């Protein structure tokens, strides 16, 4: 049994190697001697890649490391989702290779040695419950709703029902991005502060007259995303710059990318490749250039 497994795994490795050679062709620096596969003296990459950070980036991180591990089968990559700030903290402390943050890095974080690498741009969708008749909001209306100057949908051309203002907790990347883009950072009055994206969707879906905001990529049909300034919340519109609620997804490293280990280097190269861009697009994000 063991022998058969060994034989199979050898073929699998060989098969992947052929694929790899065909795929890249180019030479990669390799200091690692592959002791496990002493038969092959190739440019095979092995090692570990760890990342930790924003829960908003969970989809992107998971799909990226999965594809990365298919590309480089000897690399073991793992991701944890502990929040933007915790992720950046860990990368500064050297506990992980990459710290995911769904916001621009703070000055204090940059001073501590974290480098901001924007890999994608995320759109934030403004959502309402399905029975709501308001389909379009202007930036000023959105600001008025979230600062409490408008508190009934009838003022926005909707039904006569109060607006239940739902948002994320202080410190959340989505909330930070939302308030920063609208420039209402000290003025928002929430009636519900929920500490997860899913929680916001559930609350909005189940409360008539509720309004909330979530990352574009997790949007589902339990809620309705309203148009902003007449522009629909789609990736194309964000790329075109006509949809104003968007934010960067940062994969922070301790020091520049060029100073990183070869696995991390390969990972960033992978994200920049055509395949990587396709992946980023597949989770509803816009690849950064």
């Amino acid at each position, binding site marked *: 049994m063991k022998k058969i497994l060994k034989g199979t795994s050898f073929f699998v490795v060989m098969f992947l190697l052929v694929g790899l050679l065909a795929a890249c062709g180019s030479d990669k620096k390799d200091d690692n001697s592959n002791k496990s596969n002493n038969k092959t003296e190739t440019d095979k990459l092995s090692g570990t890649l760890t990342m930790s950070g924003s829960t908003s980036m969970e989809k992107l991180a998971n799909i990226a490391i999965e594809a990365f591990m298919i590309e480089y089968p000897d690399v073991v990559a793992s991701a944890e989702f502990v929040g933007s700030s915790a992720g950046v903290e860990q990368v500064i402390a050297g506990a992980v290779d990459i710290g995911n943050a769904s916001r621009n890095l703070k000055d204090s974080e940059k001073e501590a040695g974290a480098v901001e690498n924007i890999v994608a741009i995320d759109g934030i969708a403004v959502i309402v419950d399905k029975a709501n008749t308001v389909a379009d909001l202007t930036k000023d209306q959105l600001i008025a709703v979230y600062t409490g100057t408008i508190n009934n949908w009838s003022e926005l051309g909707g039904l006569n029902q*109060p607006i239940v203002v739902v948002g994320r907790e202080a410190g959340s990347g989505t909330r930070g991005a939302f308030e920063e883009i609208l420039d209402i950072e000290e003025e928002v009055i929430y009636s519900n502060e929920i500490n997860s994206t899913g929680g916001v969707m559930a609350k909005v879906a189940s409360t008539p007259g509720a309004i909330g905001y979530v990352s574009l990529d997790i949007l589902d049909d339990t809620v309705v995303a309203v148009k902003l300034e007449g522009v629909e919340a789609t990736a194309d519109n964000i790329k075109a710059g006509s949809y104003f609620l968007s934010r960067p997804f940062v994969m922070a490293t301790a020091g520049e990318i060029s100073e990183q280990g070869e696995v991390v280097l390969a990972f960033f190269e992978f994200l920049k490749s055509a395949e990587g861009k396709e992946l980023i697009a597949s989770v509803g994000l816009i690849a950064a250039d």
Partner: protein
Amino acid sequence: MNKTNFSIIGNKKTKKSVEKAASVIFTICAFFGVLAVFSISIYMVVSGTPAIFEVGLKEIIFGTVWRPNAADPSYGILYVILTSIVGTFMAIIIGVPIGVMTAIFLAETAPKPLAAIVKPAVELLAGIPSVIYGLLGVLILNPFMYKLELAIFKDSPDHQFTGGSNLLSAVIVLAIMILPTVINISESAIRAVQKDYKHSSLALGATHIQTIFRVILPAAKSGIVTAIVLGVGRAIGEAMAISLVAGNGANIPLPFNSVRFLTTAVVSEMSYATDTHKRVLFTIGLILFMFIVLINLILNKVMKGGNKDAK
């Protein structure tokens, strides 16, 4: 000679070393608990105090504005502290009478088949995870509260509508959650009252109900107070369930306001907090910790008082 004989007939030397080894093991085990409490206390103080010097104790405890991420941040948690106190108090007001009456029912008046239903139900109530309470609160309580809110505040345009996530929802959830604690401890306190008291009272011509309220309950007083204090401990420390139903806005604890408890303040913001914000969250934890210590001190006093009564 039997070398592995640990029994009393074993030789003196083996016996002695076994005794000694056992007592050492017991001592080590006993110190795990002490060690845990000790290290938690030290950790809470060490990580909770820096923010006090940074922000100022007065600003934290008596400030009413919670804007940790603003350009000019303020970290006032007066409303959060008040919410924890008011919320717990209201939960006790609702939960304790129900709990104590249930305990009386179980210990005194319940017909056996009925007690056989109620008792396991109460035990099951104690075992239900708090997140389930929270979920049911979201699915059942919140929509109901929202209807109530819409009806009550129909003509007050200044009210911020919360969709039913308010203090009242949290209080109801908490009241239900403390029931098992209150019921179980009150019941054993009532059962522990000497039968002589009851029989004497009944012999003097008092009715059963009179006996319960005039004789048994006063005699079980210290046990019931213990139940209440433990209920307070459970209510003030609960985070998961109320974080789902309370709305988490740092507002004045009025029944229909979205409110934030000490526990939910820590839980909901810890994952994304940085710098001073994070340190203040630890300070909130420290304040909560002090509340719990206070409750335990009261509990110790009550229990000691109870023991004196018994003697």
